[in-house]
């Protein structure tokens, strides 16, 4: 059993599970229940096996094997699983396990509407390809897996194709990812040009042959290509459109794990293959990271569609991961590999945490949408009374994402803060100012994320229902609750055992080429607590949580049973200074975020529109209803993407003039071609 786990066939068994799941769900075209059962069963079994395999692969270290020789010359289906890929397989399988668990209950509401077998097929194809993306060690094979992953996720995004803006979102998504892949192909081709092979090992061996200018252009191309997939700021416009359109357990997978494949490949490229790297690479990634973090959370605040809000938060968390990764790059180029390892550990730990709490949030948002049939937060309210467990899980998720102590979000942000702090001590002014900018951005993002999730949780679950839909919402089914519960538990466990996990991230780094030669491994963390290098600070997750619970217990004991034993508590109406409280009196999500949006008006460019509906259209004095909509303009689409689109379409309309219809003109083209060709030869 063990050698099966640690050999290549273990990985093929994993892929086999998913292929069987995909083909199986195609067979049950007619019977929805069977298709749902089959696909969920295989997904769960596959992901369980994936978790065991990744843990064993993590322990045994490097593992490289090839599938079968391909028909095409430069392509070889070869895999290489080192600690980094094993970690990412673990993250993918963990989240797939819980999403498939959740999916059993969630897919029920698609039964009569769409073909469940298609959902199963693409779902399994999508996961299989993510696994292949993180383990491929041949450029062409990587591109194949990357492209199939995008196409499978496109079909999942467009799954609910009755709604027209889902197809629009799907279109935007596939176009953006395809353009991103074009950039990645260009980067690989440039590497092929100087090392004339696509295998990562041989590229890395001859990476010294690549001239500096080419290496910089490869960096920029890879940054744009993988940045589009990861959703960094200038290339993020597909993310808030595509993730909400997909079914919830798929959008949880997409924003929890798929955008991390971009990060994985950046780590593989910049830290493993293209060493040694200049300083300005790390600085650019730091700047992009802080921009994405800050702007991501600002756009999330201005958003009132719950899934769009969570999608923007993915951009923010990708920004935080990039901060960790960027500081690692800066430290390497400055020669301090010890700190670089610490920074990489912070980035990887945050990837794991973000995967858990983001998928938890998406799953709970999914069940909320399932009950209320709308994604607009203004129509929620008071759901905690109808869906108590989902509300609790959403609360756990939002506490974890806004980095509040007992949960895992806080400890990865603590690590990122420590790396940035070390960066600030450097003498070079440029490096110090970028680190100060990054720390400021991270700090303010933390605050704004907190505000955003108070708004999200408060507007959705607390106070009174704002629409009739909420009144007949029921608690989500058992499988959904198990899925969410397990994820919430993961958030807590990763928080508590973050000390132990820290040591795992240490030896992820040591296996990348750049860290192979460092002598003393840093005491990244002993069993109980994190210790930053040059003992800059240490925190023990266990002690913190024990303190909190103990203090809470004592306070409740003292106040409830000692001091206040014989007092009575009476349930009365909320104080309403005389008028009867209607649900219009509550604060809405727009109201909540209005002050922050007005403060950051420069960036968000809000526009307030109020339509007034009069009782009698002629006499415009008695308004029947007044709706105020606060919208922020999407400056990227307005000032970059639409003009680009218009330019290409005018170009194409002008090119159509070639087909002018007159036969004489066509023959004239041939004469011109002959003349020019003869003249040149």
């Amino acid at each position: 059993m063990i050698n099966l786990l640690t050999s290549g066939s273990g990985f093929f068994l994993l892929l086999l599970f998913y292929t069987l799941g995909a083909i199986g769900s195609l067979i049950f075209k007619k019977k929805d229940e069977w298709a749902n059962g089959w696909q969920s069963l295989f997904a769960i079994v596959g992901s369980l096996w994936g978790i065991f395999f990744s843990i064993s692969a993590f322990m045994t270290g490097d593992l490289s094997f090839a599938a079968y020789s391909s028909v095409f010359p430069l392509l070889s289906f070869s895999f290489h699983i080192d600690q980094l890929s094993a970690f990412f397989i673990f993250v993918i399988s963990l989240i797939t396990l819980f999403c498939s668990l959740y999916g059993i209950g969630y897919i029920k509401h698609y039964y009569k509407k769409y073909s469940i077998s298609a959902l199963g097929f693409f779902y399994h194809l999508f996961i299989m390809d993510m696994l292949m993306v993180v383990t491929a060690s041949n450029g062409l094979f990587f591109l194949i897996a990357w492209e199939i992953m995008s196409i499978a996720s496109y079909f999942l995004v467009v799954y609910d194709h009755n709604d027209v803006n889902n197809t629009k979102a799907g279109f935007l998504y596939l176009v953006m990812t395809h353009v991103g892949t074009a950039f990645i192909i260009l980067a690989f081709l440039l590497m092929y040009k100087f090392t004339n092979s696509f295998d990562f090992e041989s590229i890395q061996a001859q990476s010294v042959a690549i001239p500096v200018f080419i290496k910089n252009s490869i960096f920029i191309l890879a940054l744009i290509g993988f940045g589009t997939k990861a959703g960094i700021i200038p290339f993020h416009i597909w993310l808030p459109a595509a993730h909400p359109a997909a079914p919830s357990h798929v959008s949880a997978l997409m924003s929890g794990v798929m955008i991390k494949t971009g990060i994985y490949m950046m780590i593989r490229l910049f830290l493993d293959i293209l060493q040694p790297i200049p300083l300005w690479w790390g600085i650019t990634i730091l700047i992009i990271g802080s921009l994405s973090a800050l702007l991501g959370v600002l756009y999330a605040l201005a958003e009132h569609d719950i899934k769009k809000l969570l999608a923007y938060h993915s951009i923010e968390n990708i920004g935080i991961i990039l901060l960790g990764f960027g500081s690692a790059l800066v430290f390497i180029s400055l020669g301090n590999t010890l700190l670089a390892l610490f920074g990489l550990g912070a980035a990887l730990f945050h990837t794991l945490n973000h995967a858990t709490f983001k998928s938890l949030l998406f799953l709970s948002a999914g069940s909320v949408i399932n009950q209320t049939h709308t994604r607009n937060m203004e129509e929620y309210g008071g759901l905690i009374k109808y869906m108590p467990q989902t509300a609790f899980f959403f609360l756990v998720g939002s506490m974890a994402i806004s980095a509040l102590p007992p949960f895992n979000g806080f400890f990865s942000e603590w690590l990122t803060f420590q790396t940035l702090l070390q960066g600030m001590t450097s003498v070079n002014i440029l490096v110090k100012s970028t680190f100060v900018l990054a720390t400021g951005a991270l700090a303010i993002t933390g605050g704004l994320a907190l505000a955003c999730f108070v708004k999200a949780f408060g507007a959705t679950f607390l106070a009174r229902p704002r629409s009739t839909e909420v009144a007949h919402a029921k608690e989500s089914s058992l499988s959904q609750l198990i899925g969410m519960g397990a994820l919430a538990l993961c958030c807590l466990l990763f928080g508590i055992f973050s000390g132990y996990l820290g040591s795992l991230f240490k030896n992820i780094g040591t296996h990348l080429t750049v860290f192979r030669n460092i002598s003393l491994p840093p005491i990244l963390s002993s069993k109980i607590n994190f210790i930053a290098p040059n003992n800059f600070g240490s925190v023990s997750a266990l002690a913190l949580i024990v303190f909190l619970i103990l203090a809470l217990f004592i306070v409740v004991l003292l106040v409830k049973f000692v001091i206040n034993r014989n007092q009575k508590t009476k349930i009365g109406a909320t104080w309403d200074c005389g008028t009867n409280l209607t649900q219009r009196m509550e604060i809405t999500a727009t109201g909540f975020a209005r002050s922050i949006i007005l403060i950051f008006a420069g960036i968000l460019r809000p526009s307030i529109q109020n339509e007034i509906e009069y009782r009698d259209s002629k006499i415009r004095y008695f308004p029947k209803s007044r709706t105020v909509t606060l919208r922020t303009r999407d400056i990227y689409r307005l000032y970059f993407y639409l003009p680009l689109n218009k330019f290409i379409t005018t170009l194409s309309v002008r090119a159509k003039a070639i087909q002018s219809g007159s036969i004489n003109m066509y023959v004239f083209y041939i004469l011109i071609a002959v003349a020019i060709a003869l003249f040149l030869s």
Partner: protein
Amino acid sequence: MMIFIWILQLICVPALSPLCMGIIKKIKAKLQNRVGASIFQPYKDIWKLLHKDEVISTDASWVFRFAPFIIFATTIVIGASIPLFASFLKNTLTGDLLVVVYTLALGTFFLALAGMDTGSAFGGFGSSREMTISALAEGCLILALFTTALSIGTTNLFVISNAGMLLSTQFFLSTILAFIGFFIVLLAETGRFPFDNPATHLELTMIHEAMILEYSGKRLALMEWAVANKFFIFATLGANLFFPYGIAHSVDTHAIVIGIIVLLIKIFILCAIVGIIESTMAKFRFFRLPDLLITSLILSALAIGLIQMQIL
């Protein structure tokens, strides 16, 4: 002996914080030449409220019921992990700067949620304004505290306070700038004057009061007490990190007694400053507060810029 000091450390924050509140009210009363209540009045209020009956709104969920306990517990935990009078405790487990900031954020998180839970208009607006300010204030707080961390080379609060004569060394200018930034954040976080008037119930201006409007009985007592604790924590942070004189470095009782006395004097001076500001200054309009906070952010960023300590 250590256990006695640990117990002292644990009970010191909840015990002394209502006292500071009393002192500030007394100073304000004196400046408005009225006698004002005694400085121990807050103790009596908390005791009274703990023994009164309670009314909870129908719309409130368990978040409303449970929030006061969580907020109070967070202040206790922070109280245990900041240097009050003894800097030799070296609580490396939770004595970290970021732990303090984010546990405070945990408290604000539940305070805002409790505010929104009852569904009254005041609670909603209170939480919205509170979250706006705390979002910006948290950024400035982290940068301000990072200046002291950078100048000493560690984020452990006890080691920072143990470092002794900070002002006289070359970091004099950066510490002063950082302290001013920190003081602005102190006023913002604890809801003192230029940001929010603690005494008023006027719905147009109140931020903090609006969130705890619906509370009564023992929950209101806990809330008031937690606010007092928060103020006391910020005051001690300000005092012990930026001016760490007179703090006990060794275990003998003589040093600890001096430590406590010096702590009380510093806290008293801070309360006086706050009291004077509250009586002389007018409350700023809500949309001018961000400019104040951004000045504090720039000050702390400048302070970090000035530190030339070379570790890397």
